[in-house]
């Protein structure tokens, strides 16, 4: 009896140990994040981004991947791994890099106030300098400015992907209901129109404060530029007079936002515009995909415009606020074949044809120089075309103020914006808090 029970325990324990090690062995060989490949089979590359397949750019990415895999059948297989939530994605990437398992190819925002990725990750990330120099035509497809942005200590540490503009989408039919026929060109007119919309029972503009408060910060950036030009703010220089004036205007703008704006996130705020409840939303090109899915007659009902100005010489009309430059980093690999595969994929993705596909079908223009004369653009949809035109015609551009803030400031941004919106902190305090959080940069 004794030995039987003992044997049972021993057998059970042994089985568990064997099973666990077998599983561990077989999972590690099939590859975690680091893409360890068998020398005989095809190289697998994980492309990690937030291009989820429920919107156009995700679908276009999947098509491009399919195309690439077909062309490199048996040699390279690219797999897309998406996480919809940007902060989660970034933290996962960061954790993976820190334990030595950087993803093969991953998307992140360039931020001059937080160069930790570039500084400390450079040893585990691909240095693109030599690949770019070896292929001058590829190098030439990026603008000098973009390339210098991703250059750290003389090395090109990432490949630029996109720098999306943030323009104002407005619902023409709702505007018509309030008796407004043209989009306002001055802020005075804008606020008057907002009052008219509100009087007609329409919520003038969609804003939100959770996560990165993107809509609200776009508005804030535009207001600041109108008050102080494109030099009104930059990274650590935030406590300026235009910024304070703009904060006061932002506070006023919140009174024209939906009742649940404080605490709402992107999904809630964009839904408000997409369902025809709010008349305006300041967003990037990716909204067009959702507009196409959710709004009937969007070609006649929805318009795209640049923000108003104060009507003086401080700002040139048509100046636009953009997102940060989003870039692709890639894990360096001792395996030459694997590293070359990543380079090949990158070249394919940034080729003129792929870029055209991303801009038209994907509704997501890249920073790669894309000739707009090709057949793909002939059928560019009714919203994408004005979006791209306004972007190209912009006399000046400025990155959204939050994108270049320190990460500490970005973490506090929701509570600061909420404080401003509900009136618990004054515009002056708002700006001084931001300044303080941005001076503690490492």
């Amino acid at each position: 009896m004794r030995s039987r029970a003992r044997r049972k325990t021993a057998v059970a324990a042994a089985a568990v140990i064997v099973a666990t090690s077998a599983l561990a062995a077989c999972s590690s060989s099939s590859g975690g994040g680091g893409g360890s490949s068998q020398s005989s089979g095809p190289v697998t590359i994980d492309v990690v981004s937030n291009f989820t397949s429920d919107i156009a750019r995700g679908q276009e990415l999947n098509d491009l991947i399919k195309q690439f895999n077909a062309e490199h059948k048996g040699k390279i297989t690219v797999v897309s791994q998406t996480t919809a939530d940007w902060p989660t994605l970034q933290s996962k990437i960061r954790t993976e890099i820190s334990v030595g398992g950087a993803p093969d190819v991953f998307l992140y925002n360039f931020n001059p106030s937080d160069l930790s990725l570039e500084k400390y990750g450079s040893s585990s990330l691909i240095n693109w300098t030599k690949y770019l120099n070896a292929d001058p035509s590829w190098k030439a497809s990026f603008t000098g400015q973009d390339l210098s942005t991703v250059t750290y200590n003389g090395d090109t540490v990432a490949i630029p992907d996109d720098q999306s503009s943030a323009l104002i989408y407005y619902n023409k039919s709702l505007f018509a209901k309030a008796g407004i026929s043209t989009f306002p060109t001055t802020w005075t007119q804008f606020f008057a129109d907002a009052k008219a919309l509100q009087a007609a029972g329409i919520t003038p503009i969609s804003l939100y404060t959770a996560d990165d408060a993107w809509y609200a910060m776009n508005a804030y950036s535009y207001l600041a530029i109108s008050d102080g030009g494109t030099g009104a703010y930059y990274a650590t220089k935030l406590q300026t007079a235009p910024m304070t004036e703009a904060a006061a205007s932002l506070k006023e703008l919140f009174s024209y936002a939906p009742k649940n704006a404080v605490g709402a996130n992107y999904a809630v705020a964009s839904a408000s515009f997409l369902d025809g409840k709010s008349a305006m939303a300041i967003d990037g090109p990716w909204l067009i995909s959702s507009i196409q899915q959710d709004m009937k007659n969007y070609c006649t009902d929805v318009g795209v415009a640049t923000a108003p100005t104060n009507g003086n010489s401080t700002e040139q009309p048509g100046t636009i606020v953009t997102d940060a430059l989003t870039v692709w980093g890639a894990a360096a690999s001792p395996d030459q074949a694997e590293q070359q595969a990543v380079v090949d994929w990158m070249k394919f993705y940034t080729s003129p044809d792929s870029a055209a596909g991303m801009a038209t079908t994907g509704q997501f223009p890249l920073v790669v120089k894309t000739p707009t004369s090709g057949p793909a653009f002939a059928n560019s949809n009714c919203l994408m075309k004005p979006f791209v035109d306004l972007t190209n015609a912009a006399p000046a551009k400025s990155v959204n103020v939050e994108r270049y803030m320190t990460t500490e400031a970005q973490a506090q941004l929701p509570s600061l914006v909420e404080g401003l919106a509900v009136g618990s902190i004054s515009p002056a305090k708002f700006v001084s808090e931001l300044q303080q959080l941005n001076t503690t940069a490492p």
Partner: protein
Amino acid sequence: MVKARQLVVYLGPAVVFALAFIVFPLIFVIVLSFTQWAGIGPAKYIGIQNYTYLFKDPAFRSAIYNTLLWVAAGIFVQTPLCLLTALIISRRPFMWKFFRTALFIPSVVSTTILALMWYFMLDPTVGLVNGTLNSVGLKSLTRTWLSDPSTAQWAIMVPFVIYIGFGMVLFLTQISTIPRELLEAAHLDGANVWQQDFFITIPAIRRAIALWILFLVGYVLKMFEYPFVMTDGGPVNVTMNLPLYVYNQMVTANAYGLAMAAGVVTVVLGALLMLVVLLGLRWMESR
């Protein structure tokens, strides 16, 4: 007497897991709490700067306050509700099986979903709460529940407090182990239902009540879905709690050292709360 070899086999696995998932990370966290680290690259030793920053940060103070508030709500509102429901259902009223199942259902639904559901319940325009108030003529009581700093704190506690399924089941199973004869004897002696419950049932299950309270403390220290999904810690940090603070500092601010320091404070707070609860229970037992 137990042999060393038997101890190793029986205790070994648990101890190994505890070492790997609790001790190792805890040491990691404590060491890092004295540094400044961005998640990648070297960690810079900065002494107790993180801790001094924490105690000056209004968001952190709000987090501690909310954590204590939730523990209090758990002990003084949620637990009595669980207990009351368990006592009522243990008497097997009409349709007791239905009530027991219905009240337990939210426990098998993930917190994220419950949080999302209540986000919509409390939405000022399309939510059921304001909708109901409006339709019964109580329009003046409607609020922007989650957007107003004065109501948000209480609004997000609602799902925490009213979902009593878990505690109810725990108490019910304990109650079912009380011998029938005890309660029958009391009934014959003339005690009514409430007296029976108060003097016999509750003392008999006090172990389970203590256990439940300890769970609640542990739960409150780990739960971040409700504030995260419903209000993102706002508005203006009024619904911030400790786990969410740690999460924000790590994931958004990339201030890992600060997050670890907040984590250490969470452990200390947890230990203190456990001590207070245990001492309180011992005091009650000695009376």
